[in-house]
């Protein structure tokens, strides 16, 4: 388990015609290693008028969070290279990384992980399997004041 099934690689073509949001739209950084889930949330968020930047591991996520204009980060926890919480710890140790609004979106519900996430200033700890993409988008938009 954990091995990436080649069939679930992120498809290049966009099946649904989603209008690309404006470049000044609120930007969400989605850090999620499962390509299928990433594509699903990305499609939903774009259709809600949000700009989405995507990273498939913690290192890439940290790089984007450091170099790009980001309004909100959605963070998965179990990821290759750098886990979600280790990535967040590094981000929080940077001068400009303390104020990022972060929502954890995971299927991991270990009490110690939840506590560690909250200690790192995470706004919400959401369980993927309990929510539809619409519900996740609604929560994100509430934080963005949309």
């Amino acid at each position, binding site marked *: 388990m954990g091995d990436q099934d080649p069939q679930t690689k992120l498809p290049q073509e966009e099946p649904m015609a989603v209008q690309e949001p404006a470049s000044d739209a609120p930007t969400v950084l989605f850090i999620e290693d499962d390509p*299928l*889930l990433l594509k*699903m*949330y990305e499609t939903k968020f774009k259709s809600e008028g949000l700009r989405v930047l995507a990273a498939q591991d913690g290192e890439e996520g940290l790089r984007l969070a450091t170099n790009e204009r980001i309004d909100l980060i959605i963070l998965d926890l179990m990821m290759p290279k750098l886990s979600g919480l280790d990535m967040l710890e590094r981000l929080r140790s940077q001068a400009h990384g303390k104020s990022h609004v972060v929502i954890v979106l995971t*299927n991991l519900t270990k009490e110690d992980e939840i506590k560690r996430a909250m200690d790192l200033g995470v706004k919400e700890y959401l369980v993927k*399997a309990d929510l*539809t993409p619409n519900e996740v988008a609604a929560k994100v938009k509430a934080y963005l004041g949309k």
Partner: protein
Amino acid sequence: MEIRQEHLLLFSLVNFVLLIIAIVVAVINSRKYGKIKEVDKEKDEFISMAAHELRAPLTAIKGYLSMIVEGDAGEVSPKARGFLADASAVNERLVRLVNNMLNVSRIEQGRLVFQMDKLHLARAARSAFDAFRAEAERKDLEILLEIPEKISDVVFVDPDKIDEVIANLVSNAVKFTNEGFVKIKLLNLQEGGIRLEVIDSGPGISAEEQKKLFRKFYRVESTSGKTIGTGLGLYICKLLIEKFSGKIGLISNDDKGSTFWFELPISKSDREIS
């Protein structure tokens, strides 16, 4: 005198041998027990990992189904909507199953943190009724809700967990009943508690099976001879209800349907009829 000494020696020797045997037996037992514990731990870890891995594809199925139903991919015909509702209901059942697998070892080991709060049980019963109405109606079952007009129903529990218990009981009733009805009923108890009953007109459960029903991994054989589920649902319900100082049980006769019930104490400051 000599004979006595010999007896004493023999007695000591026998005692010594018995002690050695006792130690050897104890060591063998502890090894066996240690091994069982180890296997048990490995099994729990495997269940936890498998459940976690299952959650990702289930999330994707749930997500895409909801997006189609919500019109993200264009207009949906009423017939397709019906099919999608069926697919969603089945998927929700899988999500519940996986959640049960993840929860069981955590509750047993006291690692599950409960978010205790006041809950109006009537509201929880109503939302379970709403959630299962479509599934019951698809099986041509009548689904009923019976709540007295005046009821004292505030309990101090983890509301999400009580929702899970009610969903488990109602889901079982709908699953095992092929014709007739499923009813959710609330009533106050004389000694200041509240009782929720899930009554069905299903095949009933034999006295023999009733004894084993709330045990871990026990699965009821359905009328078609098939067993369904993980055998964890009712076991978890029992752990949870007992955690909230309540009781759980069932009344059933062969061929006469079943009534699964749980009772919880009313939150102290809310004893008066609300």
